[in-house]
């Protein structure tokens, strides 16, 4: 099954694009960073300016109008992670722009012009930091070149700041005045571009309010759900509740006679979950008309090829698996046997469990599509408006599925009402296109909340058993971990794998990690910090169990496991650095008042996790009463992701990840029987509300390492921090998520 991610990777490979050669390919060979004058100043003879914007040769991230407005394109999709603000900040910084002059626009999808248009893996900031700054620096040099010509002064004596090019004598010209001349400057050689010293930064590192905030607070159109195109009708799509079932027949006549319904028909599909599963399409005059009709739909499904997955069976199977080590050995460091057989060592073994969970994006999956049948020898064409993390993968997918040539597909990216890894598949786009093709009109397809919960790509549930030994001195001397996850078509689903580099394997001399997988049909996918979001719960809870067994302070025990400051892979930001780890652990503990005296029933819990190149430690302060009513007072986080681009946005990500982690561990659980997801809406899939929402304090360690992303790594330490705090407060050890399954309420 090729996912959008794979389509994107293929597209990138075909074009030979990579992070490193991006500027060469699209920057220099392709004509360079273009500084285009949209409204050229008359002073510079506007009429004879070449038309630069939209030229296939050239790449435009920046345009400057003669009134000084600087328009910067944001090329990557925005889902609430803040890159629509953070990336343009990098360009503006290097240009020497005044942020107040900057207008950010979401770019069209055009990889030849903008490069890799994708978001995920908390990777956009790190992979674009240098590239965006170079684009800004290139623009700056062209402006300075223009100023040098206009002022007849040597360029070495000029600098760009505050949207002006200034000379020591006080002479200056504004970017707006220079724009038209600047576009005629030669494109600077990328290798000669000088980047500013961070000490000069006036934009990067400052808290800047999100560029869409005015539209958000006034209810202006931004999201896929808000798209309106002329002649548009509304659509709903019903797929088989048992994933993969086929629609055989339906009460279409009844549905077509319902108020506001224009058409209803069966779509055969191509059998691919990520593209077009069979279902019943309903098209009507309003979203309500089609939702209402959908409620009356009766479909005969052929479930012979459909999922039969059962959570109850998975639990039973897991119990069998966990009786011994896993089938696949992932890690086997040193010798665990002696640690477990030495009779003076203390040994414990614990079983952990975590459920399937849904992304539950507040904006349900939706897409507006306009399929236009070619006439008079013209080929068919499609335009889509899609909230997606992978807009550049849409055209190849539609080409393969509908036979519409890639270059006849126009993809418009919209802001996403949350994604968290969800919007990486194209099925809601394909469904909308199939419907538009059938009715010959633009169709806006909206999934109901129930569709969205039933047809997610879930975070896979799993089960783990961990055994550990501590010696007489209370040191961790053996670790044996067996994870039971899920596989599809013989491959671990997203997040169910087990890496050799997973903490704490590299920290320990004697450690074994084994894996067992059970085959399922329920679609699974990337869910905020895949793998880490469950692994941290098990590992960081169990380390606390061991510290307790050894009679040692958890903080000190965890720091001892971290050991001397060192890289696990020298120079690689993607590898754990024990010094950075210890720094966050100490800081979180200190800020949360680790060791302070607390009243009966109140406790602190600590956890650390390394994921997505980020070192994050969190301490939770909770109270637990005799009825297992939990109050989370405060969560304190310490984060090291290198320099922070936008402190406001960065902090928001960590605050949100903590609330998300808490919401998920408290009561969220997706179950399935006979392949059918059992939860329909928020009444069966509870979410964290204001009254139970804790205070969150975030502390950043601004180390000199290169900056990395923050959309995900704030989440993994939260669940074990809460579990450990519950233990400290009550002596009860949480080993199952959601904790409502263990009787906790908030």
């Amino acid at each position, binding site marked *: 099954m090729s996912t959008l991610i794979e389509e994107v990777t293929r597209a990138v490979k075909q074009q030979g694009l990579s992070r490193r050669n991006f500027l060469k390919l699209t920057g220099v060979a392709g004509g360079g960073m273009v500084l285009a004058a949209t409204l050229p100043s008359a002073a510079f003879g506007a009429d004879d300016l070449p038309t630069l914007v939209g030229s296939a040769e050239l790449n435009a991230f920046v345009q400057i109008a003669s009134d000084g407005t600087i328009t910067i394109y944001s090329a990557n999709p925005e889902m609430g992670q803040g890159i629509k603000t953070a990336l343009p900040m990098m360009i503006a910084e290097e240009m020497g722009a005044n942020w107040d002059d900057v207008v950010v626009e979401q770019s069209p999808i055009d990889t030849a012009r903008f490069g890799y248009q994708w978001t995920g893996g908390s990777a956009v900031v790190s992979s674009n930091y240098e590239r965006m700054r170079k684009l800004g620096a290139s623009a700056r040099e062209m402006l300075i070149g223009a100023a040098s010509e206009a002022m007849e002064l040597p360029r070495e004596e000029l600098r760009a700041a505050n949207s002006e090019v200034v000379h020591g004598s006080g002479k200056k010209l504004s970017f707006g005045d220079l724009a038209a001349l600047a576009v005629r400057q030669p494109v600077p050689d990328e290798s000669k571009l000088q980047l500013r010293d961070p000490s000069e930064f006036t934009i990067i590192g400052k808290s800047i309010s999100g560029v869409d905030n005015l539209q958000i607070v006034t209810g202006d159109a931004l999201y896929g*759900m808000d798209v309106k195109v002329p002649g548009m009708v509304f659509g709903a799509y019903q797929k088989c509740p048992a994933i993969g079932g086929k629609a055989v027949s339906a009460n279409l006549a009844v549905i077509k006679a319902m108020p506001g319904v224009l058409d209803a028909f069966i779509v055969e599909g191509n059998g691919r979950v990520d593209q077009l599963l069979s279902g019943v399409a309903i098209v009507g*005059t309003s979203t*309500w008309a089609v939702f209402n009709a959908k409620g009356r739909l009766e479909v005969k499904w052929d479930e012979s090829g459909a999922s039969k997955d059962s959570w109850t069976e998975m639990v039973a199977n897991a119990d069998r698996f966990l009786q011994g080590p896993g089938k696949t050995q992932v890690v086997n460091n040193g010798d665990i046997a002696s640690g477990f057989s030495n009779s003076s060592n203390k040994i414990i073994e614990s079983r952990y469990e975590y459920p399937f969970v849904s992304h539950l994006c*507040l904006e349900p999956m939706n897409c507006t599509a306009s399929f236009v049948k070619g006439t008079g020898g013209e080929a068919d064409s499609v335009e889509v408006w899609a909230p997606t993390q992978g807009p550049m993968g849409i055209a190849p997918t539609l080409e393969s599925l509908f036979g519409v040539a890639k270059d006849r597909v126009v993809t418009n990216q919209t802001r996403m009402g949350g994604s968290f890894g969800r919007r990486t598949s194209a099925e809601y786009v394909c469904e909308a296109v199939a419907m538009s093709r059938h009715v010959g009109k633009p169709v806006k397809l909206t999934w109901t909340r129930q569709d969205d919960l039933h047809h997610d790509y879930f975070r896979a549930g799993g089960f783990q058993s961990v055994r550990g030994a501590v010696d007489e001195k209370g040191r961790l001397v053996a670790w044996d971990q067996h994870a039971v996850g899920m596989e599809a078509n013989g491959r671990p689903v997203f997040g169910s794998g087990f890496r050799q580099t997973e903490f704490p394997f590299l920290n320990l001399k004697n450690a074994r990690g084994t894996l067992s997988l059970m085959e399922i049909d329920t679609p699974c996918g990337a869910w905020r910090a895949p793998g880490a979001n469950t692994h941290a719960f098990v590992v960081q809870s169990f380390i606390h169990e061991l510290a307790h067994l050894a009679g040692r302070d958890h903080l000190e025990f965890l720091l001892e496991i971290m050991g001397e400051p060192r890289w696990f892979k020298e120079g690689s930001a993607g590898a754990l650095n024990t010094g950075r780890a210890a720094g966050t652990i100490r800081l979180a503990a200190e800020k949360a008042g680790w060791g302070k005296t607390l009243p009966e029933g109140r406790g602190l819990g600590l956890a650390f996790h390394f994921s997505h190149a980020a070192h994050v430690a969190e301490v939770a302060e909770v109270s637990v009463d005799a009825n297992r009513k939990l109050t989370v007072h405060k969560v304190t986080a310490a984060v090291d992701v290198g320099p922070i681009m936008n402190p406001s946005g960065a902090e*928001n990500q960590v605050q949100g*990840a903590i609330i998300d982690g808490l919401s998920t561990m408290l009561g969220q659980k997706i179950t399935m029987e006979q392949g059918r997801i059992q939860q329909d*809406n928020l009444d069966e899939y509870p979410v964290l509300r204001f009254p139970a*929402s804790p205070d969150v304090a975030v502390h950043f360690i601004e180390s000199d390492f290169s900056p990395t992303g923050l959309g995900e790594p704030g989440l993994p330490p939260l669940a074990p921090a809460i579990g450990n705090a519950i233990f400290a407060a009550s002596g009860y050890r949480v080993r199952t998520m959601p904790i409502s399954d263990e009787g906790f309420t908030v």
Partner: protein
Amino acid sequence: MMGNWTLNNGGNSVAKYSLMVNGTRRQFEAEPEMPLLWALRDVMGLIGTKYGCGISLCGACTVHMDGTPVRSCTVRVSDVGEAEITTIEGLADPRNLHTLQQAWIDLDVAQCGYCQAGQIMTAAALLADKPNPSDADIDAAMAGNYCRCGTYVRVRAAIHRAAGQMASAQGLPAATVGHWEPARTEAQS
């Protein structure tokens, strides 16, 4: 290729409505059972009000009916009558924002932003009712507004900020302020 088109929307299943929305009278035809949410979004083109759950559990669709916050996904268009509806688009002139809207921008509350129109509408009704709310007042009033991205800390702080600004604009003592301390950065240790 083209399905059978059965046009019902001109038939007797629709009725005529005349609603006061954001100070303007709007006349349109719709099925009586259509929730106000969809009449606003699909019929009137007021897309600021959002769909999240359809069963009154997320608050994304919150609008005011005669000043009271309601979940428009479960108010039938035929039940609105003469009530005055205010949506996020009508809360204030975009060139002269409501104090809450400005506080939302100042504190950079939104992440994805999808829930925020509903959050602001509920908060606006709260402040109209209780100009100086405590954290507990805020939590109680806002409990029905879910934020998937987890912006609760900032929503609380923004409500406190707006309450303080509205009070001082009237020469009253500033309201309680929120206790959210923005992130601190530490030198590398």
